């Protein structure tokens, strides 16, 4: 499977969705709802090796590479509802995308939807740590597929 939309197109789509919300309650409710709808990962994937370091809540990230379509596949989960919501946005943008596209695209969505604060490295939810790991895995698979 390969996404038809580019990462930027998805960023713009998310921004449009969030523009509908007039207050923080609606915004967070929507974010949490997105997380709740995220497909569950197997219990045996929730192991230490899959934990994203630098998150105060537990975040598991499982990368894979679809050789046929040459795209990255990500599964992820967290024990925090807000973090799951943030994960769902990341997966929507990054899963089924080519590693080189993941590495070359700048993220502007969080700033635009008023969740920029979550990108701060000191922030407990570790959104920046997840983005770092997604890019790290993409870099590794990109190098492997080129070799």
């Amino acid at each position, binding site marked *: 499977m390969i996404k038809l939309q580019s990462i930027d197109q998805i960023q713009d789509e998310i921004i449009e969705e969030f523009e509908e919300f007039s207050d*923080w*309650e609606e915004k*967070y*409710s929507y974010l*949490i*709802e997105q997380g*709740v709808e995220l497909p569950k990962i197997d219990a045996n994937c929730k192991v230490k090796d899959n934990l994203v370091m630098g998150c*105060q*809540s537990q975040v598991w990230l499982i990368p894979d590479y679809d050789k046929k379509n040459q795209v990255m596949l990500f599964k992820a989960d967290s*024990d*925090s*509802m*807000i*973090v799951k919501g943030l994960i769902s946005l990341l997966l929507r943008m990054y899963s089924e995308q080519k590693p080189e596209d993941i590495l070359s695209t700048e993220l502007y969505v969080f700033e635009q939807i008023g969740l920029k604060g979550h990108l701060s490295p000191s922030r*407990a*939810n570790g959104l920046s740590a997840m983005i770092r790991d997604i890019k790290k895995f993409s870099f590794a698979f990109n190098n492997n597929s080129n070799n």
Partner: protein
Amino acid sequence: MIKTMEKTDIKSSVNEIRKDFPILNRKVNGRPLVYFDNAATSQKPSSVINEMRRYFEEYNANVHRVGHALGQEASLAYEQAREKIALFMNAKSSKEIIFTANATESVNLVAWTWGRDNIKENDEIIVSIMEHHSNFICWQQLAKEKKAILKIVDITDSYELDMQQFEQMLSDKTKLVAITSMSNVLGTINPVKKIAELTHKYGAKILVDASQSVVQMKTDVQDFDCDWLVFTGHKICGPTGIGVLYGKYDILKEMPPFMMGGGMITTVSIADSEWEMPPQRFEAGTPRISEAIGLGIAIDYINNLGVDNIRAYEEELTSYMIKQLLEIEGLTIYGPLDMEKRGATIAFSIKGIHPHDLGTLLDELGIAIRIGHHCAMPLHQRLAVDKTMRASLYFYNTFEEIDYFIQSLKKSVKIFQKFL
């Protein structure tokens, strides 16, 4: 600046008091800041900020070693701060007050000087399960190094120190009891005087971590009869980077230096060196001059309000908050509900909701509370929770802020509960 307080005057003067703390005017995420993370650090009154600025602008110089006017002024201010602290905690002499970086350094100083000299194989050190890491890890590691035994007093079902178990633990093997006077999570007040009395019966020494209680309750080292008492300056309206170690002079005199360098010697030759008497022996290098002076001004501020007045007002605030928290479904408070047995720190959790999630929404609403293990992992393991939320109140907090907090908490809980 607020005038000297009569008894229980804080409630009616709190809006005046708040004006002394410039930071309380600021907004967070477009809303007025509600600062309920006082157990982590307190905010600073203008008098402290201004005096530290004045030090750098008017009399900045090194202390104890320069004869010129600025040096004398700086030395005087630095030593006056020591005097104020001695008076504040009723030490016999200011020579019993050592300036350190923080409470952690104060505990480390005792552990790696007195502890290393006096703790032997099979000796026993007693701590409690409610200790902050700063009064836990040192003793754990010292016990490992010396093949000594670390014993840990548990809490009761009502989150109080298990005094019965403590008494049973004491024996001739006990060499040290290191205990907090108020838990930074549970808020529990420990009966320090009674603990010291029991400890001394067995010839052991007692170190008290007063970091939380020092601004909430009267600290009287002679009444407590503790051998050492530590606290950090930044939780009592002082700056960061300054802590206090009180020690009985006879004990301090026998302790070797912790760090070596300028200012702590009488003579140095190529072959050897001789140490100054305490407190200088333990203040190697240029000390934290501006911070000590700032802490002295903070002590003035607290004295002006009166610790007993602070305690009375904070008891009212805490009681008001706990009552409302208990009305929230699924909420657990980790700590005594009896106001006489607790301080103004309230740790809690809400069933099914991640503490970080609630913390995030409260932050959106301008409310600062602490989420995590609060540097007390052994306690959280004992409570069988990974993390808790902690709201800690201070004399500049108001009933209106508590109302806003409760209302915001309920609103946040509702958002998550839709998805549970």
